[in-house]
């Protein structure tokens, strides 16, 4: 079973992401911000879905930190945010994001993305 980490300061968004992924058979680890995510990340995480704007450590910083870790250098990292500006997307891409989803998402969309990047 693949393990996916969802990072978002909104508990209800984490809840919806976790619900969608668990329903499809994935194991989910929740983190409330970038700092929390780094403290919980381990070799067992196959993918990260992170928000952009969060307290303590934002999504871009998290991606940079993860990419610096050998275990997370090549895992898919998807941004899930309300932010839709091209500049911010480019920033995410430069930091090492695999893809970008603008909130709100539909469960089937999220699952399609997960299946595609985990293939």
């Amino acid at each position, binding site marked *: 079973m693949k393990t996916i980490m969802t990072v978002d300061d909104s508990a*209800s968004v984490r809840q*919806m992401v976790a619900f969608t992924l668990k*329903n499809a058979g994935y194991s989910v680890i929740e983190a409330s911000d970038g700092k929390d995510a780094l403290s919980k990340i381990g070799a067992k995480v196959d993918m990260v879905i992170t928000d952009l704007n969060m307290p303590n450590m934002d999504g871009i910083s998290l991606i940079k930190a993860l990419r610096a870790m050998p275990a997370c250098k090549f895992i898919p990292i998807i941004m899930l945010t*309300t932010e839709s500006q091209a500049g911010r997307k480019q920033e995410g891409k430069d930091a090492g*994001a695999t893809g970008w989803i603008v*909130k709100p998402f539909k469960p089937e*969309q999220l699952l399609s993305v997960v299946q595609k990047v985990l293939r």
Partner: protein
Amino acid sequence: MAAIPQSEGDNLLQAAQLCAGGLEGLGLGFLNSFHGTEKDFLRLGAQLEGFSSRSSQTSALAAGLTELTSGEAVAEASAKLAANLERLGGICDVAATDRQLAELGRVGSMGAKLGEIMNDFARLVKHLSMLGVSTRIESARLGDQGAGFATLADDVEKLAGKIGESSGKILVSANELSNQCRSASISLKQMDEARKGCSISALSLLEADLSALEGLTRASREAADSVSSLSRSVVSSISEAVLSMQFHDIIRQQLEHVAEAAEEARDIARSGPGEGLAAEAADWEEVCDWLHSIADLQRSQLGNARTRFAKAMQTLEDSLASIGSQVREMASGAASLAAKEAGQEGVLAQIEAGVGQIAASLREYSQLETGMGSIMAQVAESIAGMSSIVGEIEEVGSEIELIAINASIKAAHTGDEGKALGVLASAIQKLSVDARGQTARILELLGSVDAATFSANAQGDQGARLEAVVSGLDAEVASIKALDHEAATQAAMVQSAAEELSGDIAAAVASLDFRWDLIDAVTAAETRLQELVDELGAALPPGHRASRAPTLMQMLQRYTMDEERLVHEQALGLSGSVTTTASGDDDGLGDNVELF
């Protein structure tokens, strides 16, 4: 706070002061209300997860029920019914009954013919008796010479008695046989009627059952399609609900940005021109103009957030209600396959009753056939008994012949005096020939009937076949009963699960009322902002100088959503700064998804 120039008028100062007061704590009202909804959203999210899981289970149960009533078990029941239909057809072979009736007729007419033969035997006995008497008279007339003929007379009379006794027995047996055949024919005809009646009702019932099973299978397939379609609708409704739930987080950012902007506006109003955030403002007119545009913009942002939140909540309510109604519809459609409808038994229960009725009729018929077998055994026994008696007569015939030869020899020894006895000896010999002829006729008659046929019928292979069919039907009733029970149990589970789920969903829908506290709080903030906009507008002189507050540009930078930027641009009459960020949907993932 900077000094207020008299030329700018007290009303501008007063409007700014009112604005500062009005903006004080503005954000706290709706933000507190918003944070108050967090636990409600988390509860709703957990409930939604439960609803999703339970609706999937209900779908699976409903699908299982439709599979049960359309799948292998019903196909097996149909096949067994068809097989029994065929076997019943074999049992109801009318030609077999006709053959039995013909056989019984033949035996019956044989009884009548035996009666006639026995009449001839009676004449023979009479002649023999007379010959015995004549022999005794002649013997007396001859005196000492005819002494040996007295023994001959005794033998003749004794033989006449034996023949009389045996033919009497045969006559009784022949009469019994005729009666048995008549009785057997009547029973056979009654049994045939019963069999025909039974087979006709069995055939029609079985055909009706087969047709009902086909109907059930068809209805089950339709229900399965409906369950499948409703399951997809439930998934779609859950998807809509998940999407709507995210608006809690989406409008949070918009509300926080409004609260932040309101605080900045309050600081501008408090500090006045040339101070703090209003450092670039030339005078109170410009400050009030800035405040006016900021308040108006935030009112628009709040209106946008409220509208989107209310719409999302309505979608959530509709989605939840749809899940409830889809689950109910699914359960109702599936359960109707097994449950009683409008006072009628379910299809499986009807079939179970029909098959049970057929089995009972066949069992009654089997009893009739057992009785018939007993009659046939008696017929076979009577025929065998008669053959044995005929053997006795044959022996008597041989004895007559010996007596006749003995009489002829004695007559010859007696000479002329014994001529009369020679005539008697010839008559006795002729009677022995007659007796042999009659015996041969009886044997021929008995030989024309195959007693083995009756014995076989008495043993009743038909009975065994019937028992096999009845046993098969009993097993079928048991399996259909088990199927019906299982279907009814599953239907009850589906309905119970659906009712419980739709009840919980209805409660969750009712609990969505918490949204109104937030909507009311946002509306109150909008109203207050509108009042400030009106007051500032009234204070500003006609044709006042319009300038762009620097903080407005900071706000634009702060936004994370296109929606906020669009509201901002529309409120301030700007255009074109919002770039199109849609990724296109070439990959089929949606406009809001982009993979790098």
